[in-house]
């Protein structure tokens, strides 16, 4: 594996291998007081973030450090990017400095793809515009495997702002690759053009979808959408598409609640639902570190011994 740019086109075997590695890393670290493996000693991982992020960036940094890589964090705001340097020049600069892997988040869809064409370093897409966020989908899949055992034949309902969501796209690809059935629920204004040709089913009624699903994934409603005319008001959205306690009761007993974060409690998810045992939100975050360790391992050290 040279880059991780998208889950579209990621083969089932490769996806399962990543998830299995993440599992093994998790087991290897279980109960250890010192979270440190020597696997990536001497390797340099740069996180290059052009958008604000707390969890993804911290997660990659921790993943790198737990594997003994040297991790350098660059934010667009505090770098030569603010002086107008192009993404291409920034990428080439980092490559020239000897970065082995660049983890990039960028508001432009396709930015990571472009970067992979410009430099010879490994590139990991940590979110590009509304396109993809592959490590998020992998950590979601890892969490669902933990809770449900496997994904074959499972039904996953993704709720909310699908059209602007890279999380939804990456999950749609990966979940279907892993054999799950994906159902999208949103008002038509938040569904992408041509969604009827995606390998998913689509609905507008959340209550109707909940009783038959094994997992429900609540997407964050971005603040800028609330005033963009996509729906009349935050209140109406919350009433129609928020995961309330009453709706939690419609889910089957075993069903899992996921949220990629950051959550808007009281908006797309009720406070008590987010903290309920059905919610796997902190497990998602924990798995995120292991999945990202697995990704870095597969990119940078796959020729060497297993961890």
């Amino acid at each position, binding site marked *: 594996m040279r880059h991780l740019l998208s889950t579209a086109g990621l083969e089932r075997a490769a996806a399962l291998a990543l998830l299995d590695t993440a599992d093994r890393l998790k087991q290897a670290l279980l109960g250890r007081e010192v979270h440190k493996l020597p696997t990536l000693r001497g390797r340099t991982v740069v996180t290059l973030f052009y958008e604000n992020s707390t969890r993804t960036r911290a997660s990659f940094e921790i993943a790198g450090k737990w594997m003994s890589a040297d991790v350098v964090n660059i934010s667009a705001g505090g770098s030569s990017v603010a002086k107008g340097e192009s993404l291409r020049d920034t990428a080439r600069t980092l490559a020239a400095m000897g970065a082995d892997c660049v983890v990039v988040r960028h508001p432009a869809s396709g930015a990571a793809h472009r970067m992979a064409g410009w430099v010879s370093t490994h590139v990991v897409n940590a979110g590009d515009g509304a396109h*993809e966020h592959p490590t998020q989908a992998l950590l979601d899949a890892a969490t669902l495997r933990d809770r449900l055992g496997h994904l074959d034949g499972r039904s996953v309902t993704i709720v909310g702002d699908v059209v602007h969501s890279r999380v939804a796209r990456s999950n749609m690809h990966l979940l279907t690759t892993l054999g799950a059935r994906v159902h999208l629920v949103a008002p038509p204004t938040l569904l*992408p053009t041509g969604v009827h040709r995606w390998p998913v089913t689509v609905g507008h009624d959340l209550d109707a979808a909940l009783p038959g699903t094994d997992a429900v994934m609540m997407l964050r409603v971005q603040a800028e959408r609330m005033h963009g005319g996509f729906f009349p008001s935050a209140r109406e959205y919350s009433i129609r598409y928020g995961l309330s306690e009453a709706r939690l009761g419609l889910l089957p007993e075993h069903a899992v609640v996921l949220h990629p974060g950051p959550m808007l409690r009281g908006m797309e998810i009720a406070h008590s639902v987010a903290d309920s045992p059905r919610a796997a939100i902190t497990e998602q975050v924990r798995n995120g570190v292991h999945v990202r360790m697995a990704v870095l391992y597969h990119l940078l050290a796959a020729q060497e011994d297993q961890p």
Partner: protein
Amino acid sequence: MSEQTLSQRTRPLLLHGIRPYGTGDPVDILVRDGMIAELGTGLDGTGAEVLDMGGLVVLPGLVDLHVHLREPGREDAETIDTGSAAAALGGYTAVFAMANTDPVADTAVIVEHVHRRGREVGLVDVHPVGAVTVGLRGERLAELGGMACSRAAVRVFSDDGVCVHDPLLMRRALEYTRGLGGVVAQHAEDPRLTAGAQAHDGEIAARLGLAGWPAAAEESVVARDCLLARDAAAALHVCHVSTAGTVAVLRWAKERGIQVSAEVTPHHLLLTDERLVGFDPINKVNPPLRTAADTEALRAALAEGTVDCVATDHAPHAAQDKDCEWSAARPGMLGLQTALSVVVATMVRPGLLDWRGVARVMSERPARIGGAGDQGRPIAVGEPATLVLVDPDGTWTVRGAQLASLAGNTPYEGMELPGQVVATLLRGQVTVEDGQVRG
């Protein structure tokens, strides 16, 4: 070959063995004093420079209603010199240079400058397009009369790049231009529907997470403008038609006698949004590449005349404006040197258009729409020797670095295309010979 320079040429020129409009047996054309002096078989070439053309197709010189020559303002991407060379090599003898330069061509001073520079270069007639509104800002009319009466004699007015969106301003522009004998060329794009748009609003853009540019943003403006043109009894030209829906609107308008003409670009005839996969901004253009159903409708519309002509929307961009992430890239692609070949590939080879038809859509109709009186003329005695000679069976491989434009942003890189321009004549002057600029 003669060693004389173009301006010194006084000798007659005999074009031997050519087929006007690609039909009939080969004939000869004797060019004298810039005009077609004789046309027939076995013409006497004594004292003339003889170009043996061995059965090539001859058409009236091509006319492009829509190019961006970037001068003044972005001479790092194209100049009137390099753009004229690209045009001549593409078989063109006249181009209409859009107004979105820096400064904007919205006064007589700027259009006269562009016009004069075109004459100095002398490879093609450069007709400046005048801006409809001051600074392309869509707020108030530019001095259209001043540009019309200038030495540039502007007849085509356009804010191309942006839409004249305000319906009242568009109405006034159409009415006012009628009094100048001109035409308003509209870049039809509702700016509210395309805010932030990056690609055709379809399945592919949705999958790639690129904000969509809906077909309705074009179609609704074209429909509105046709109604405004009807009421103003004015001439409207629709730039770069890109959707099947626009074709239907145009058909409706033409059936009612509304004075509307329309152009389609070569890239909208050939390329689709399938090219977006991979995010290479070489494929970014405005209006965006659409679907295969759209290209099919556009080809049929061009064949039947609902879309009048082909215009390139030749849009050179500096490398750094294309070698970047998709949303940061400027929209546009080179077109002048590849247009005829793309038309051969999409229209002639499939049998939708014969060479007579190519002359209509790439020379005669655009010349009439743009008011270029001595362009797009019949191939007949007494007419200007403004001609292009094409090898219909030749093929060539597109290499951006080898094109005459300063910029290299061609979406056809590496493609093998049919139809080769061998020679171009502008009023008897050979501007291109053996596929090379002659100057």
